[in-house]
């Protein structure tokens, strides 16, 4: 059996490709790109939430938010680690992010303007992420699938705490309800954009699905998310800002309005409200933290010298 037919057989059998296996160069590059950008998203995703840690309204909410932000850092690490099994170093990938050569999810280029955003991010943004990630637990590359299993277990906490936060606000004062509604109004459409361009505008989807890296198309995932989220919004008494949103009996799904694709491409292209701020901050903390990395290496060298003395 040739390398290629062995690889094809693994994919056809719905088996997992593992790091030691031969794989087509395109498969390897697609995975590195996707896993790295996923990892970058986790890391940059700490910023909009980190913004509210010092202003959380109670000790309980503060502890929850810290735990959540710590999880995002952990998810970034799992993913870089999975990418490294493909013959790249984390160092290299982080450099690509710092130089702006690789991107992260555009959702993090929107600002977090009020406390309710901490709920909306958990409920809608993590909710959209989970829809995508549950699919990715079945991806064909073993280390990526295993990282996804670990992440999905933890994302459930993220989504539930977010929805509970919104429910709490919606049962509160008029001001609190308005705050939650304002947050929903700002995050609904960007959350739908997280699934990427429509299938027609996503030329790489077909190959990714043939390799079983992706198992469900962007549009199908988006529909799944809308169908799951509408009843949750109705229960909370919060309004989804889409006049075209309605149940379609015939399709058995919710119809929804057209996404503003100009805005989507604009933010992807670097012109979102916070693109600059996120990257400036990331580069700044990397530079500011240099002394910590150097100190850790100096300590390790000292320990080593002591041991071998």
């Amino acid at each position, binding site marked *: 059996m040739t390398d290629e037919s062995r690889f094809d057989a693994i994919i056809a059998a719905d*088996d*997992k490709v593992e790091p*030691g*296996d*031969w794989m087509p160069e395109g498969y390897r*590059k697609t995975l*590195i*790109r996707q896993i790295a*950008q*996923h990892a970058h*998203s986790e890391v940059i*995703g700490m910023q909009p939430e980190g913004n509210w840690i010092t202003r959380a309204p109670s000790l309980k909410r503060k*502890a929850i938010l810290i*735990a959540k932000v710590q999880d995002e850092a*952990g998810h970034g*690490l*799992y993913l870089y*680690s999975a990418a*490294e099994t*493909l*013959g*790249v*170093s*984390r*160092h290299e990938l*982080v*450099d*690509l992010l710092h130089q702006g050569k690789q991107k*992260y*999810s*555009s959702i993090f280029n929107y600002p977090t303007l009020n406390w309710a955003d901490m709920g909306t991010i958990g409920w809608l*943004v*993590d909710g959209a*992420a989970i829809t995508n*990630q549950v699919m990715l637990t079945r991806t064909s590359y073993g280390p990526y699938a*295993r*990282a996804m299993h*670990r992440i999905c277990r*933890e*994302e459930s*906490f993220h*989504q*539930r705490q977010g*929805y*509970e936060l919104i429910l709490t606000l919606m049962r509160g004062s008029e001001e609190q309800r308005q705050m939650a509604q304002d947050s929903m109004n700002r995050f609904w459409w960007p959350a739908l954009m*997280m*699934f*990427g*361009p429509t299938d027609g505008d996503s030329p790489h989807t077909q190959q990714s699905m043939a390799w079983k890296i992706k198992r469900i198309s962007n549009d199908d995932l988006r529909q799944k998310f809308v169908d799951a989220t509408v*009843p*949750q919004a109705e*229960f909370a008494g919060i309004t989804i800002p889409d006049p075209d949103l309605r149940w379609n009996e015939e399709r058995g799904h919710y119809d929804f309005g057209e996404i503003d694709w100009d805005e989507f491409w604009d933010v*992807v*292209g670097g012109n979102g409200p916070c693109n600059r701020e996120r990257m400036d901050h990331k580069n700044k903390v990397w530079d500011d933290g240099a002394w910590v*990395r150097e100190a*850790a*290496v100096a300590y*390790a*060298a000292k*320990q080593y010298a002591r041991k071998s003395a």
Partner: protein
Amino acid sequence: MSYEVPHMEGDDKIQFGSHREGGWPRWEAFVRQRGGLAHIHSESVHAPDAETALLNARDAYLRRVEGVSLWVAPADQVTRWESDAPEAASKDIAPRPSALWEVFVRHRRGLAHAHAGSMAATGPYDAIEKARRVYVTHEEGVGVWVVSAATVVAADPEEAEALFEPFADKDYRYPTYYEIPDEVGHM
């Protein structure tokens, strides 16, 4: 958190793996979730030394009460064999005095390597050879890793409480902490 980042111009020009080395060394991390279970590979961490590697692995892979024991081993000290690439098997160039090697087996595709046991061998390939005979019979394994027992660093059992216990009372880290009405469906 996730995303679908669309392809942009210039994307396909990035050459991966051509970059200078840099950053801290990589360590493979292995977690025992409960007494009676084997140490299972949990992917890797970066750290300048074993002590920091253990702390980083604790923070990365044990943020919840999911483990009772943790090992790390330098990634470049792990010798790897896959059943689908038999040509990769090789001989030790210079056999050394017999020493102990830890053996980790991938039982089937999709599963992480699990600690299978330890054995005496005169080098990494001797260890793989022996491990394959013992652990990869009857199609029960698709990959073997061996690493010299001397290079595996375990979290001090005396410090287990300090390492793993602090997470026990952080019940807000679990989804079940949040009451979600049945009406809204699974979340």
